[in-house]
């Protein structure tokens, strides 16, 4: 047992995995990972080649180069950093390189904000990366270790993004149970190189090696690009199975089992909150509170957002009367947040489905204390009793959540502006 915050827990897990290359650029709230890891390097506790790059774009490029040469590569980022990596994210997944990255979720500018929300990762949700969202620092540690096994599985071969909520997890001290170094080493095993069949029938290792010259990611036009994307879709489908298998095997080792979803008190739940990340912890606490008041409350935490465990979510929610899906990022102009939209469409052809409402919450690190989640359960109770959904898209913890009708800017011409029509200096 060690006292660690989420960032240190990730760095410690990476230390035990001892990847060949870590290329990273510091950004709040991910900085501690890079800082702590560079100490491990300086102390000789790892044999990792640590490359302090000049930007996140380079961090991902370097990871791609390293992984293409057969190395295990790790990086970490957040917010604007992840946004700067965007172009390279698609290259990592398109080249099928099993890179592991921690994304310490943080809001995106503008206005500038350093605190936790899921806008950064959600912007990259279609980049072909597996996305796992952690509830606490223990899970962050456990997931970084499992991530290599998922990423490098022969049926998957996709990069994995381990998401932890900025500050709430990254900077909060927690008790984290750690494995002995050799148990981690044994669990992740030796890095293997994929062998692929060329169209002429010959086998070739999928790695940059002078004895087996190949080009990766070469131009792929109308004739084959589509086929390669179809392969990635298939790999994501396999990942649904592999994430569960690896989570089970890890559970056998540690007693902490992980799956695609994490249902809490869902067996007989009539009202449920669906949420990702650290807020699930608060929601579980509130569900206990509601249970003590005789309300059949439950929480469904979605751990894997990519691949999206559609079947498991439908199964977990189908008997619920009303559920609230909580989104910590906005999809502007969309009818609901990313998690809500996906869950609602999962139920499209189901006969038995709960009444669903969507809450945007916690943007820019806005606090989501238990009483707000209690309010959500009371809203759900009313909906279940009356059968009336009311407002489908709602805002939790926002001052004045009435529908806006007069929120707009006024325009002024430059001429009027220069003539001082509206004050100024």
């Amino acid at each position, binding site marked *: 047992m060690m006292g660690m915050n989420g960032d240190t827990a990730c760095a410690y897990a990476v230390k035990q995995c001892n990847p060949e290359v870590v290329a990273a650029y510091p950004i709040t709230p991910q900085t501690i990972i890079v800082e702590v890891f560079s100490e491990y390097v300086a102390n000789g506790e790892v044999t990792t080649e640590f490359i302090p790059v000049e930007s996140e774009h380079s961090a991902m490029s370097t990871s791609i180069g390293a992984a293409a040469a057969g190395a295990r590569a790790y990086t970490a980022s957040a917010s604007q950093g992840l946004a700067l990596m965007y172009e390279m994210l698609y290259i990592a997944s398109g080249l099928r390189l099993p890179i592991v990255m921690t994304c310490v979720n943080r809001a995106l500018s503008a206005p500038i904000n350093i605190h936790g929300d899921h806008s950064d990762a959600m912007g990259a949700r279609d980049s072909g990366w597996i996305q796992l969202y952690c509830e606490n620092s223990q899970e962050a540690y456990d997931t970084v270790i499992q991530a290599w096994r998922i990423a490098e599985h022969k049926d998957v071969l996709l990069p994995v993004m381990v998401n932890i909520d900025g500050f709430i997890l990254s900077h909060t001290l927690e008790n984290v149970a750690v494995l002995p170094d050799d148990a981690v080493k044994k669990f992740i095993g030796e890095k293997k190189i994929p062998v692929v069949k060329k169209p002429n029938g010959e086998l*070739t290792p999928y790695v940059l090696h002078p004895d087996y010259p190949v080009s990766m990611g070469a131009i792929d036009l109308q004739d084959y690009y589509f086929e390669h994307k179809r*392969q990635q879709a298939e790999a994501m489908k396999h990942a649904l199975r592999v994430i569960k298998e690896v989570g089970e095997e890890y559970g056998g080792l540690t007693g902490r089992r992980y799956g695609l979803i994490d249902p809490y008190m869902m067996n007989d739940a009539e009202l449920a909150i669906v949420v990702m990340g650290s807020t699930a912890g608060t929601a579980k606490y509130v569900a206990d509170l509601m249970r003590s008041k005789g309300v059949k409350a439950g929480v469904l935490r979605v751990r894997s957002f990519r691949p999206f465990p559609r079947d498991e979510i439908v199964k977990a929610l189908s008997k619920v009367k009303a559920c609230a899906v909580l989104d910590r990022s906005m999809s502007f102009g969309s009818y609901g947040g990313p998690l809500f939209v996906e869950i609602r469409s999962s139920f499209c052809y189901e006969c038995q489905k709960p009444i669903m409402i969507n809450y945007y919450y916690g943007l820019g690190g806005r606090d989501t204390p238990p009483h707000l989640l209690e309010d959500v359960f009371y809203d759900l109770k009313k909906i279940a009793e009356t059968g009336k959904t009311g407002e489908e898209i709602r805002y939790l913890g926002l001052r004045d959540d009435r529908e806006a009708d007069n929120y707009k800017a006024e325009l002024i011409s430059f001429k009027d502006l220069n003539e001082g029509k509206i004050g100024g200096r």
Partner: protein
Amino acid sequence: MSEEKSWREIPMGGLTWLNSIEYKTGEWRSFRPVVDHNKCTRCMQCVIFCPDIAIKYKPDVNMIEINLDHCKGCGVCAEECPVHAITMVKEKD
């Protein structure tokens, strides 16, 4: 490309089955570099600048040699040669 294969039959990641030695980029060329070995001072500028690494210095004959299988005719060598020893000549159609 002769026969188009399904997504199940092709290697992942856009892996090419011809490596850059086998793949003859010289087939695109519309202009060919021609070296005047009398003018050439063996300064090696063209060897460094050629983006296709198509120019080599042959010490046995003390001459530079252009590999026309891979020279794509970009003209960088002709542009960079300080003594204008390389001229670009139109390929015949």
